[in-house]
Structure formats: C-alpha cells, structure tokens
C-alpha cells in the first residue's frame, strides 16, 4: 500500500470515468503529436529537397508552381524553356552549378526526370544496385519507387506522356532499368531518372531517328527544351543579380525556393493552427473532465477521506493522494496519446506513400513531444488542485458526526 496503489485502486473503482478521461486526453495529445511529427518531417523533407538550390529557372507562370514542380515534383510545370537560353544562364558568372531538368513523362504516376548526373550528385545519391545511366533509354529508379513497383535491374517499361496516370504510352521506346538508388530520404526516392536526351528522344518520335544515342545532334535547336534549371549561386551577391537579370532580360522566370516554401508553409500553417487549436480544446476539455470526476469523487469519498484521517493521515497526504490521481490520469492519457499520435502518423504516412506523395513516418521522435507530455501532466495536476485542496480541508469530526 502506498499513495500510488491507493490512487490506482480508486481509478479502477470507477473505471468507466477513468477511461473517458484517459481517452479524451489521449485524443488531444495524439492530435498534437501528429501535427508535430507531420510538420517536422514535412519541413525537414522540404528543406532537404531544396538544400543547395538557390534559384529555380522555369517558364513564366506561378513561381510557387515552378518550385513545386521542379524541386518537389508535386505540381505540373509551367512550361518549357529553350536549350539555348539555358546554356546562357549556365555560363553566367553568378552561377556556380546548373542542373537541367526535362519533365513531361511518367510511369504509372511516377515522374520521369531527364537530367544529368549532377542531379544525383547534388543529393549525394548512392547506387543500391547497377550503375548510373549512360545511354539514352537507360533508367535509374528511386528506392521507394523500385520497391513499390517491384522493379529490378534489366526490367523494361514504357513511359506515358504527361504526368497523370492516363497519358498516351510511348510504345516505341521502352526504358531499361540500369540502376536502383539507395534510399536517401529525398525526392529522388520516388522518381525515375534518366538523361535529358532520353526525354528529348521520347518527344521527337516523329523524326526518323537513326541512332537514338545521337539524338542531340539530330534535333533542331528549337526542339531542344528543358523544363527547369536548378541553380546554385557562385556567391551571395548573385542573389541580387541573377533573378533580376533573368526576369528582365529573358522570357523565363526565376523563383526562389526559400521564399516560395516559406510562403507555402504560411498557407499550410493556417490549417495546422486550426488543428492545433482543436487539439488544445480537446486537452482542456479532458482537464475539465478530470476536474469534474475528481470533484464528484470527493463527495463519494468524503467518508473515506475522513476515515483515512482517523487512521493517522495528515491533510497533506490526502492532498497528495488527489494530486496523484490527477497526475496518474494525465500520465496514462499522455503516454497513450503519444503512442496513438505516432500510430496515426504512420498510418497516414503509409497512405501517402501509396499515393506516392511526400512520405511521412510515425516511427520517429521529436523533442517537442516532451513538452506535450508536460502539457498533459500540467493539465492533470491543475485539474486536481481544487479537489486536492478540498481534501486537505476535510473536517473529520464534522463528516463522521453526520454519518
């Protein structure tokens, strides 16, 4: 027998009430934990995918669309830009590194990205099997995609025109899987990668191509197009020069990933705030419920409390007993909520992976969760304060004389 076992015995004695309080608290905590996990991972993924990319150059249109389509491969591109202009940008003294992207095709919903090996190097990609592409129609597959589509080295598949699931299939030129990437936690995990010449070849099918590997020399200059250029600045001063140069002197547009992702997060942030508010309401109604439960329990237990006093309990101990019950409810509810939050996140993350969006996992821990647990415990203790004070002030002789 000690305070903990007495508290537990009382919680067990009114198990339905206890369950209600725990569930309420757990749901609130779970929602907050889910938000923490999801936003932290989203934020981390978005940062990692955009890391080292100072500027994205694409066709005129929405700058956010340019960023979403070329860094995160989520939205459709704004259009294409001419090869010649891309080369000029690459030669600009403010540019340290330029990675071209040619988009437009997909395989069962996964995007096919025509680019250079620099794109792989940028994300530090390592091969899990096979090698990087050398020839036109060689394809390297991201880790998640390879797993989901069950693609292996040497497999052949046909790309479809467009980024949806229903585009016209390019029957004449099958891709060959020559490499599979290691999981990197970046956007590469869910892409099909190949040389940009491959993408050109796919869209130049009306030509009579003799040697497909020599495609670059057989196309007119106007037919050679990129979708976007990922640019790393040579120096900080470039930020002041290059975007203005591009926006003023070309019919392309420059979009800043840092600025656009910040804008995106401020839009998502409203939804996050609403959910967080909802979660806090849940937590505080749990607190209220704990308060009411303990307060009512005081009435049922006034004789128990008085008897405990006759058995030698100090008022302080009765107060601790009530506080302990609040604390115990909060700890159980909080812990259950944290577990639930992780499970929610994992289930949602699983669904998102199926839809091959940005992946989220429930099997990580963010340090802010300690604060959520502290919040739950704080609510439990505060809810128990008034009942505990009343227990402290139990009038033994008066109570016993009445009963």
């Amino acid at each position, binding site marked *: *027998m*000690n305070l903990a*076992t*007495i508290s537990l*015995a*009382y919680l*067990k*004695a009114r198990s339905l009430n206890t369950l209600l309080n725990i569930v309420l608290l757990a749901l609130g905590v779970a929602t907050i934990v889910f938000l923490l996990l999801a936003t932290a991972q989203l934020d981390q993924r978005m940062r990692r995918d955009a890391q080292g990319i100072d500027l994205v150059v694409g066709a005129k249109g929405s700058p956010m669309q340019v960023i979403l389509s070329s860094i995160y491969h989520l939205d459709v591109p704004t259009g294409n830009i001419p090869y010649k202009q891309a080369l000029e940008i690459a030669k600009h003294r403010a540019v340290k590194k330029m990675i071209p992207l040619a988009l437009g095709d997909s395989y069962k919903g996964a995007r096919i990205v025509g680019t250079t090996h620099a794109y792989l190097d940028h994300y530090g990609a390592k091969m899990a099997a096979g090698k990087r592409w050398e020839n036109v129609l060689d394809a390297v597959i991201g880790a998640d995609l390879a797993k989901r589509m069950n693609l292996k080295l040497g497999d052949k598949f046909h790309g479809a025109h467009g980024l949806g699931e229903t585009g016209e299939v390019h029957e004449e030129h099958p891709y060959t899987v020559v490499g599979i990437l290691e999981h990197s936690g970046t956007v590469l995990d869910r892409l099909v990668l190949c040389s940009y010449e491959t993408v050109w070849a796919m869209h130049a099918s009306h030509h009579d191509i003799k040697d497909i590997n020599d495609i670059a020399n057989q196309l007119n200059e106007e037919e050679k197009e990129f979708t976007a250029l990922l640019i790393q600045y040579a120096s900080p001063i470039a930020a002041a020069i290059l975007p203005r140069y591009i926006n003023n002197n070309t019919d392309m547009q420059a979009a800043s990933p840092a600025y656009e992702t910040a804008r995106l997060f401020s839009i998502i942030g409203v939804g996050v705030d609403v959910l967080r508010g909802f979660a806090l309401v849940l937590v505080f109604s749990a607190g209220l419920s704990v308060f009411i439960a303990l307060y009512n329990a005081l009435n049922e237990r006034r*004789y*128990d409390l*008085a*008897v*405990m*006093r*006759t*058995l*030698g*309990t*100090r*008022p*302080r*101990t009765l107060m601790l007993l009530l506080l302990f019950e609040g604390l115990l409810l909060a700890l159980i509810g909080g812990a259950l909520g944290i577990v639930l939050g992780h499970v929610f996140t994992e289930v949602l993350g699983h669904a998102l992976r199926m839809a091959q969006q940005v992946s989220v996992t429930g099997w990580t821990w963010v340090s802010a969760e300690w604060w959520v647990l502290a919040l739950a415990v704080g609510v439990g203790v505060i809810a128990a304060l008034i009942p505990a004070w009343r227990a402290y002030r139990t009038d*033994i*002789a008066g109570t*016993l*004389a009445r*009963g």
Partner: protein
Amino acid sequence: MFALRDVHHAYDGKTVLSVPQWQAEQGAQWLMLGPSGSGKTTLLHVLAGILRPSSGQVSVAGQDLGALSASALDHFRGKHIGIVLQRLHLIDSLSVIKNLLLAQYLAGQSQDAGRVREVLASLDLADKANARPHELSFGQAQRVAVARAVVNKPKLLLADEPTSNLDDARCMQVLDLLLTQAKACGATLVIATHDQRIKARVPNQFELGAARV
C-alpha cells in the same frame, strides 16, 4: 490509560460537552453511557484526537494531546488510537486485507502482512482477506472494522455504538470480541453506547448525561 480534566466543547456558542474529570487505567474497560444527543460521539472524537475541545486537558497514554502539533496529533492517533465507527466506513475500493494494510501504512507503520493475517484469523476472517467490503455481511464488515482498529496494537480502542441494531446474541458476540481484542493488545477500551443490554458486562461506567451543564 487516559485522563480528561475540565473538558468543555462548545459549538456555535452552545456547550455540547462538559466533562469535569474522567480517568482510566491502562488496559481498563469502560462504557460511556448516555442518551442520544448527550455528546457521546463528541467525547469519543475528543478522546480520539479528531476534535480539539474548546478548553480542558486531554491526555492519552501519558501524552497531553493539546501539546501536540496538528501533524504530530495525526501521527499519534494513527499509531496509538483505534476507532470502530458506528457506520464502519470501510474503504470499498480496497479489499479487506488492503484496508488493514492501509491502516498500517497511514499510521506510518511498516506494512506487516503477517500481523494483518493474524488479526484477521483471530476475528475468524481469514477466508475474507481478498473480499471487497460490499461483499461482506454486516457482522463480517463489523469484524473487519474491529480488525482495522486493532491492527496497529493501539493503546486506546474506541467503539461508537457497536451493538445498536444487533439482536441479543450478536450483541454479546460483538461485545466479547471488543473485550477480547482490547485485552489482546493491552488497550484501554471505551465503548460509547446507550444499549442497556451490555451494562451488566462492563463494570466501569461513565455516565455522560449527568455531567452536562
């Protein structure tokens, strides 16, 4: 052993208790008699250290209760005074054995399951150790209440109207039980009662109504 001297208690300006003097030797067995409303329960609470009288001196087992701080009094009560309340008030969320362990724990004693089983056995309750109070008959519950009062081997055992609502046979059983248990732990026994049936059994009697102002 206990001694009361010039004990008065007033409630809302009205005197509800007045005891000029009452002394008992250690191990003595007393009845506290008086009609309903004569202040028996109040006096019992004063003896138990639950209620501090408005004035007067109360000492139990040589200890002046008035000299103890609130928390020292709580501790003293837990350790040296056992009370059998009229309505028993067992803790229903806990099993019988846990009710007794609780009494040891709250009195600041070490929890001695051997002592608890010994007391339960002496009250013929060994097979009820894991029962919950609401599963017991009144007689069994009353014996548990006695067990709880004596488990810490008190110096003073108090019982409030233990035989009211009992038939003659049971009345004597309960009385025997209190007398035996008090003797077993060497406690001074005070039974507050208005039950005429038990008068013949306990020679030491303190009449309350007569002492009232």
